[in-house]
């Protein structure tokens, strides 16, 4: 590549093309005069004005001059480079010139259109053209960079987000590694009974997708596994995965479940939100994928006391293997999709709500398990004493929209709270109270769902809950709960007495999201969720090229939005993987190692971590794939060692000279 600084040795022949843009420019600026002015300037071989430079005839003028007159730099004085720079770059490319040997002078938007007709407008156009001419002398060819993309994608997290993304990619016959921390994929959605707003049974819509994952020849599923390290960058990441010992040989296990049946030891089931029990060897739920149990080291009596091995005795497939060890494997992938989901807020710190002390106060996730036919009560709603509840209060915004905990709205709680009204009525026919601050039902068919629930004789109380206390009055012999809240519509304090309370708890960033962010070099927004590249225009990409975020790890959202985002990220990853390469910007910084004084000012400033320090040669270097060409480093380098391609100091200084002559 020719040097970025100083004039190249070649004979510079500039062609200048001034556009009339019909009357758009010509009615304000004297375009003939501008062309005439350009003709007289150093290195200008030809200057023409034409009615429409962007038309095919106009483009041909440039092509011909390049071919016939040997023009090797081009200045187009026309509309904004934001509109047609690429068009004219293509003209150069097609004519055998490097596209970066072009400079546009914006004499339409930033001259003709914003000034009155007259000598001052023409003078300004002349100056802009002179600047472009002086600048283009210092332009040099830039190799457009592409990086090869290794044809495999990693998806981290096997909730509905990760499942959807993995399936989309696998359906295009591309390899996906799906790494899930738990023994089964499914995430939170597997824990739900019915899903709003349609009230489909959650398992009925999720299980087929989980089975599809298991069947797909393109998905390499690794459950009970974690990503522990990521190195490399877009196109070629090396990912270290820890496959935790299952103590069950995945190749031998036939999924008969006899080990689970025979295991004499039980413990709280995480999947059932600790409301039910599971064995020390277990699959979290009956439809688990893969249908291969895990021996929980922390609970297995053989591991704790050295005696038992009941499972081993009964396993006909001889799949139990207490000697198994954690495996570390390296994967090579071109793109990464992060789908690690959310945790639910633990309401214990809000002591006035009594969660943990009052046995009939549940969280939303616990209520999901109580409603589920595969849950700890086989879908029957029961109080601590075994009675069926006759009344329920659902409290919204617990830990959400609360400056003491999470300032944001968790977005799904109003809807799942309404869902609970319906489920409770369906199961018990009892009384329901919704205690809400604002009803937020924005989503397709959501408001309609709200209306449907309103029609089911539910009591809506607009207000903030102050406390939940046991009912102490003598008149009751059954245990009841009193909710004290301020009704903000009536403006008074009211008490509601019910059998059961569900707290609609916030969706929170995963407790280990800081660690995951570090491994993947992701940013986090103030609320702790992973940060997208652009909140509106690029909500799935991240500042780390080639890494995408989907589902609730990016922020609370419902299943439809999660699925849409997952498909979007899959399309992005596929676009890279299928093409096998990716263009990275041509405008990137470079460091002259003869000048660099090793101060490392640049690397500390680069927003993309694109500058690394080369210890052996004691200079800083730019990774062209990561660099986005902002020149923040160049502006700061005290030695003047950094130059950004197509925006070099020499080029800008020449342009300054040009506009001021």
């Amino acid at each position, binding site marked *: 590549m020719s040097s970025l600084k100083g004039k190249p040795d070649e004979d510079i022949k500039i062609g200048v093309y001034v556009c009339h843009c019909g009357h758009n420019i010509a009615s304000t600026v004297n375009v003939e005069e501008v062309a005439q002015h350009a003709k007289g300037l150093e290195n200008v071989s030809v200057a023409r004005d034409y009615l429409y430079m962007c038309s095919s005839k106009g483009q041909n003028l440039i092509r011909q001059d390049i071919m016939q007159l040997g023009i090797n730099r081009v200045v187009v004085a026309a509309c904004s*480079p934001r509109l047609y720079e690429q068009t004219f770059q293509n003209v150069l490319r097609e004519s055998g010139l490097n596209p970066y040997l072009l400079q546009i002078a*914006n004499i339409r938007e*930033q001259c003709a259109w914003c000034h009155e007709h007259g000598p001052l407008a023409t003078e300004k156009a002349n100056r802009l053209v002179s600047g472009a001419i002086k600048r283009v002398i210092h332009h040099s060819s830039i190799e457009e960079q592409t990086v090869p993309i290794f044809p495999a994608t990693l998806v981290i997290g096997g909730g509905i987000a990760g499942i959807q993304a993995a399936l989309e990619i696998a359906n295009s016959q591309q390899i996906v590694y799906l790494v899930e921390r738990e023994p089964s994929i499914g995430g939170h959605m597997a824990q739900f009974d019915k899903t709003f707003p349609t009230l489909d049974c959650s398992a009925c819509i999720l299980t087929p997708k989980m089975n599809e994952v298991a069947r797909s020849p393109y998905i390499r599923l690794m459950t009970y596994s974690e990503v522990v390290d990521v190195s490399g960058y877009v196109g070629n990441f090396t990912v270290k995965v820890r496959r935790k010992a299952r103590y069950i040989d995945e190749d031998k296990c036939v999924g008969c479940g006899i080990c689970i049946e025979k295991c004499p030891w039980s413990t709280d089931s995480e999947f059932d939100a600790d409301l039910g029990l599971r064995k020390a060897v277990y699959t979290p739920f009956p439809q688990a994928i893969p249908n291969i149990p895990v021996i929980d080291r922390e609970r297995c009596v053989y591991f704790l006391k050295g005696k038992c091995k009941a499972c081993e005795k009964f396993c006909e497939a001889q799949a139990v293997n207490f000697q198994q060890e954690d495996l570390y494997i390296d994967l090579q992938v071109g793109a990464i999709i992060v789908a690690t989901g959310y945790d639910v807020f633990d309401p214990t710190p809000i002591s006035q709500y009594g969660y943990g002390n009052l046995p009939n106060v549940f969280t939303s996730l616990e209520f999901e398990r109580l409603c589920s036919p595969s849950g700890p009560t086989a879908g029957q709603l029961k109080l601590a004493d075994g009675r069926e509840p006759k009344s329920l209060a659902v409290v919204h915004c617990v830990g959400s929209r609360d400056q003491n905990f999470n300032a944001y709205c968790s977005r799904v709680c109003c809807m799942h709270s309404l869902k609970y009204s319906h489920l409770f009525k369906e199961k018990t026919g009892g009384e329901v109270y919704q205690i809400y601050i604002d009803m937020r039902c924005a989503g397709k068919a959501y408001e309609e769902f709200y209306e449907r629930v309103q029609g089911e004789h539910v009591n809506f109380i607009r207000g903030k809950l102050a406390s939940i206390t046991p009912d102490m009055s003598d008149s009751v012999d059954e245990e009841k709960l009193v909710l004290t809240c301020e009704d903000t519509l009536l403006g008074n304090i009211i008490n509601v007495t019910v059998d059961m309370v569900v707290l609609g708890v916030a969706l929170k960033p995963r407790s280990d999201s800081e660690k995951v962010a570090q491994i993947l070099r992701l940013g986090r927004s103030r609320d702790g969720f992973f940060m997208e590249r652009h909140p509106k225009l690029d909500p799935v990409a991240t*500042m780390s090229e080639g890494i995408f975020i989907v589902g609730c790890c990016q922020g609370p959202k419902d299943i439809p939005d999660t699925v849409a985002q997952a498909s979007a990220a899959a399309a992005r990853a596929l676009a890279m993987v299928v093409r096998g390469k990716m263009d990275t910007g041509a405008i990137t910084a470079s460091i002259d190692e003869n000048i660099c004084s090793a101060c490392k000012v640049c690397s500390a400033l680069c927003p993309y971590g694109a500058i690394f320090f080369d210890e052996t040669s004691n200079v800083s270097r730019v990774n062209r794939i990561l660099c986005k060409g902002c020149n923040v480093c160049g502006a700061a380098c005290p030695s003047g060692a950094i130059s950004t391609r197509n925006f070099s100091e020499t080029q*800008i200084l020449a342009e*300054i000279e040009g*506009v*001021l002559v």
Partner: protein
Amino acid sequence: MSFEPKIVAFLCNWCSYAGADLAGVSRAKCAPNVMSIRLMCSGGLEPAFVLKAFKEGADGVLVCGCNLGDCHYIDGNYKTLMRMTLLKKLTRQLGIEEPRIRLQWVCASCAEDFVSAVNKITEDVRALGPYRQNKVEVGSGSAIS
């Protein structure tokens, strides 16, 4: 002939340049004294560019970037803000009057902010009169030759 100031504006590509284009698209008229130079980010503005402009005969310099928080490169304009504060200290010492250098955030739909910044600096500089660089020798450093 009356004095027509020559002013150089440095515009970041993503918001300010788009905002300035929009001024044209909406046919908002502004003073024809300001010549824009496009940078990728205002954070890429080298102090030498500003000094060079004065050395080459500019009477004023306008620097525009995205609104704080909107920089296309995350936080480049915070760096601009700090750099401009330092630079203004230097230029003051060099005898360049305060109003000759102006920093203005211009969002991509903020054509009016651009137009008023252009008109303001043009009027301010017109009132000050031409900048005579022989007042002080600037640009003896190698970077601004």
